[in-house]
């Protein structure tokens, strides 16, 4: 159905479906979306500049605070980069502990996402149930690391705490409970008619488009492309652990839900294997404060997809330049493609479908596209320009 003329509907930066500030300008023909213009950069935190002002040790805690949900992925990526610059390697036991924490975080993050997706399609009961069971993972985090959200587990040269023998049976109990519940939800998602009606065939992203638009993580794997940093470029102890990369070729929101549900089950298997075959020994080696000159790129498979950190050191105790590319940024072009041709009512679930974490993604740069110019401003210059006169 066409009405001949289109109307522009802004979505965000404040909108109930978006928990973070981001703006999408939709061009709508009746109920159909015909054009999307994303406008990112509302949440500039100056985090890359902040990296340059702090020492390497302080930066671990800064990296932790890039994202509240996948904080461990960021510290793993950071410590990995710095360890490579230093030529230090974490002990094998520390590597296994990093795997356990990373996979537990993946379960936590995906469970959170399943709840949000259920809320977006109005299924609040599923939302409440999933989040209730997600508490188990947070309790396990509290037991292992002492914290429920920002775990502060990684440090340069290893991890801060060991997993003691008396923790292992408790972790196993938690995993058994989670597995039982997750199988139930996986079954519910595949059989509940109203979920299928809202998720199947919605937000289509074909395999070719997914590759062309550089989608990452579960979004890419739900479009039938096998891509996982844990396999392609194994870090920590992933090369020693056998596991399956979950791929679905549904290309729609339903496939994205299923990929994440099955990934949670796979994470449970990885954790069990890691607990079984964890080597003994120390968990931390001493690392020097000064980092030799050099630059490094580090990659990690965060719950949302491929996370890239870049560090450049100049031989002092502080990095000269630090760059973070969070997975959400990689998914934005693909997201715009998914939204095209869809219904207005499907916008929230398709948007949520990439598991967006806009606050981690937003950076700011001054550019003039016409003059092909780039520049930097200090805080004072910014204030002079934008503060109330």
């Amino acid at each position, binding site marked *: 159905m066409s009405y001949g003329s289109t109307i522009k509907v802004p979505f965000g930066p404040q909108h*109930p*479906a978006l928990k973070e500030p981001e703006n999408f300008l939709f061009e709508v023909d009746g109920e159909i979306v015909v054009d999307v213009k994303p406008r990112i950069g509302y949440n500039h935190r100056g985090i890359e500049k902040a990296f340059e002002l702090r020492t390497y040790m302080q930066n671990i805690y800064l990296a932790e605070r890039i994202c509240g949900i996948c904080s461990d992925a960021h510290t793993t990526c950071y410590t990995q980069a710095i360890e490579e610059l230093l030529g230090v390697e974490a002990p094998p036991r520390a590597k296994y502990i990093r795997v356990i924490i990373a996979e537990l975080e993946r379960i936590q993050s995906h469970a959170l996402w399943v709840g949000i997706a259920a809320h*977006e*399609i*109005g*299924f609040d*009961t599923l939302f*409440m149930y999933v989040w209730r069971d997600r508490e188990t993972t947070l309790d396990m985090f509290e037991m292992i690391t002492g914290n429920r959200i920002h775990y502060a587990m990684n440090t340069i040269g290893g991890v801060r705490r060991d997993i003691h023998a008396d923790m292992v049976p408790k972790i196993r109990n938690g995993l058994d409970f989670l597995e039982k519940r997750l199988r139930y939800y996986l079954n519910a998602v595949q059989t509940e008619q109203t979920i299928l*009606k809202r998720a199947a065939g919605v937000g289509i992203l074909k395999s070719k488009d997914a590759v062309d638009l550089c989608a990452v993580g579960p979004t890419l794997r739900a479009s039938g492309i096998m891509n996982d940093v844990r396999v392609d470029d194994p870090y920590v102890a992933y090369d020693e652990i056998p596991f399956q990369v979950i791929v679905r070729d549904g290309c729609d929101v339903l496939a994205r839900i299923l990929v994440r549900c099955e990934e949670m089950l796979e994470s449970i298997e990885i954790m069990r294997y890691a607990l079984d075959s964890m080597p003994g020994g120390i968990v931390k080696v001493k690392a020097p404060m000064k980092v030799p000159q050099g630059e490094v790129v580090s990659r990690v498979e965060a719950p949302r997809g491929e996370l890239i950190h870049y560090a450049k050191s100049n031989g002092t105790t502080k990095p000269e330049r630090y760059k973070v590319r969070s997975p959400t940024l990689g998914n934005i072009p693909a997201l715009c493609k998914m939204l095209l041709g869809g*219904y207005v009512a499907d916008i929230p679930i398709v948007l949520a479908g990439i598991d967006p974490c806009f606050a981690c993604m937003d950076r700011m740069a001054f550019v003039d596209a016409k003059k092909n110019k780039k520049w930097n401003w200090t805080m004072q210059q910014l204030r002079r320009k934008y503060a109330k006169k």
Partner: protein
Amino acid sequence: MELDNAAVEEEVCKEMTGEIIVSMLKILVFPGALFLFVLAFFYEWVDRKFFARVQNRYGPLHTGLHGILQPIADFFKLLSKEDITPHSSDKITFILTPIFYFALPLTTLFVIPILNQKSLIAFEGDLIFVIFAFTLIIITVFLAGWSSMNRFSTIGSMRAVLQMLSYEIPMGLVAIGPAIAAGSLSISRIVEWQSPNFWLILIQPLGFAVFTICLLAELQFVPFDIPEAETEVVAGWRTEFSGRKLALLRLGRDLELLLVSALIASLYLGGPQQFWLIPPIVIFLLKTTFVVMLLSLLRAAFARFRIDQILSGMWKYLIPLAALQIILIQLGLGR
């Protein structure tokens, strides 16, 4: 003789005043407005508590016993809040619609038998009046959203009307079922007919199912809460309402829930009946509580549909089912 006449007149006058006072009390206090308010708040609590327990939450907890006074507390809190009328809204409509939205279900409740098998106001054809009132409620909703002049309100009110186009016809169709069985279009007579015979749910289960689904859509409960889908259109047609207006809208919604559950209880579950020594009103309350719990259970068990899915689903499945029920009744099954 003259004296006698005057005495008789005085007597008649007294009697009439007494009657007027009694009927006034009936309408205003019991089983009229005041009783209905209390009942409406009580059912909001039942709905909220049951819905929360189904979702493994606590629900209202602190105000009164198990939070039973929470809806009343919410109501009075909203009354004391700042009442905003948006600058660009159509002010008269915007102010009047909450009053209509609250008055319509209240008035309609008078034709439903509560105290005994005779309602406060009963006339031949009040079933049609109830269905007409349901339509008027949605038209009020449309006006409320439209007069707010808010993007989300406008979308919400358009969706409400679209949804009405889908469920109104099957609802009207199946509502005829009980009327055919009882041979009357009066709800009181349908209730009376069920008491020596049997509950209509037993012989018209299909009609009961279709009617419940349609009323779920009328109440805008999940999976039919499209006009106020919070992740899509904020609060839908209610976005701009605040303070006293929102309090009235909420009370109107509670009364609507009461109306819907009372209507289902009367048409399909026999309404107020005398069981041994238990008075009819207790039976009525039990039945309506059951219906409210059924509605909240349904709203906990589904995800929200999309508006086009509702429209096509209702026309494709519910209308044929409703027609099938009427055909079955005409063939002699279920009367």
